[in-house]
């Protein structure tokens, strides 16, 4: 257990904060890469998922894609892109975008589709346009599921951003690999604890956001 104390002491050490390799800088970098990847993926995946959910076309593609991506070893994707694009932020970012895509697509599609059909039909019968149906009925009703997709994607990306340090000088994973190489267990464990804490906090924050998105009327008629 003293190893944990060593790791915490390593984190608390003022010398490891500030500057380009400091913990604060690495946390921000890790978060920036995560949000950038999820953001870029969402710009394409969410509208596409909404379209699929609204029209009901292309469902099989979503299911097949989600299954196939789960089977691809992330490390393989990272190393292949790393060789192809060189040591920079591009390769890990691209791999993370690819990783976030299926969860976002599935969340958006399932969210829109989960909207009560009776409510959608009612909205259509009172004369709402297709655009109004999506923005005023399906999206508010499906926000919970959609945000679930965002949460899953973010969690996956923040975790995998750790692996990104294997092919580039990015994020908190750097401590982990540096410690591993130099057999410095305190640094390695400190990196592991920092990533785990970051992932947990992010997940809790997104869970709270997801809860807040649920209809406030209390009960949703089923």
């Amino acid at each position: 257990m003293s190893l944990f104390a060593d790791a915490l002491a390593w984190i608390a050490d003022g010398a490891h904060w500030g500057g380009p390799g400091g913990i604060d800088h690495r946390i921000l970098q890790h978060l920036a890469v995560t949000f950038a990847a999820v953001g870029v993926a969402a710009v394409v995946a969410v509208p596409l998922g909404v379209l699929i959910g609204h029209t009901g076309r292309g469902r099989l593609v979503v299911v097949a894609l989600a299954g196939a991506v789960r089977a691809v070893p992330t490390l393989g994707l990272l190393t292949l892109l790393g060789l192809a694009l060189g040591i920079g932020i591009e390769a890990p970012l691209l791999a993370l975008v690819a990783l976030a895509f299926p969860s976002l697509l599935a969340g958006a599609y399932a969210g829109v589709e989960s909207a009560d059909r009776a409510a959608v039909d009612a909205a259509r019968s009172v004369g709402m346009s297709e655009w109004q149906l999506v923005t005023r009925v399906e999206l508010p009703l499906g926000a919970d599921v959609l945000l679930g997709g965002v949460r899953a994607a973010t969690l996956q990306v923040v975790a995998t951003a750790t692996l990104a340090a294997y092919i580039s000088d990015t994020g908190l994973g750097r401590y982990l690999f540096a410690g591993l190489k130099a057999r410095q267990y305190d640094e390695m464990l400190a990196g592991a604890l920092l990533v785990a804490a970051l992932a947990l906090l992010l997940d809790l924050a997104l869970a709270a956001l997801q809860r807040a998105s649920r209809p406030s009327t209390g009960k949703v008629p089923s």
Partner: protein
Amino acid sequence: MTWLDANREYVLDMLVQHLRLSVPAILASVLLAVVLGRVAWRWPRAGTVVLGAASLLYSVPALPLLIVIPVLLGIPLRSGLTLIVALAVYGTALLAGTAADAFRSVDPHVREAAEAMGYSRAGVLWRVDLPLAVPVLLSGVRVITVSTVSLVTIGALVGIPSLGNLLTDGFQRDIHAEIVTGVVATMLLAVVLDGLLVVLGRVVTPWRGTVPTGVTT
């Protein structure tokens, strides 16, 4: 293909290592998840806590977990057991909720009928609940099988040999063919194990498919 021809033995060796790590992790996950799922189904209040803890565990990233486990259990970092424990934690966390759903999917009338016919509690569990829970449970087992096989590769980063070695070695020595071989072999292994599970599912639920459609739900 030439790289594969020259390194056939190495790839096979890593494939065997990969299986040795993934199969025990999958088996342990199924066992633990069924027990936890049963608990969550039987006592819903405790179940909320158990399933909540499971989802929290699932949000711990894999590589950090791989580093924390040896410290907690006092085993060497580079031992295969470290990876098996980490993967079993993930598999269990992911499957426990599905296992609870699987027990919930069993028609209560069937259970009551079995009790009325004089089945003991153990009899109901082994001969009614578990077999009828198989279809839902199996869908979850297939998911964790594929993700476990894929996740084994990260063991290579801390020095636990598997097909993941082809990825790290290929990266360090700039051999594209080696990485591609590693990715394809890992995915093939996942597909083969998934196929075996589908066959197993048919074998243990012989009543499905033989009943005219419309009678089964």
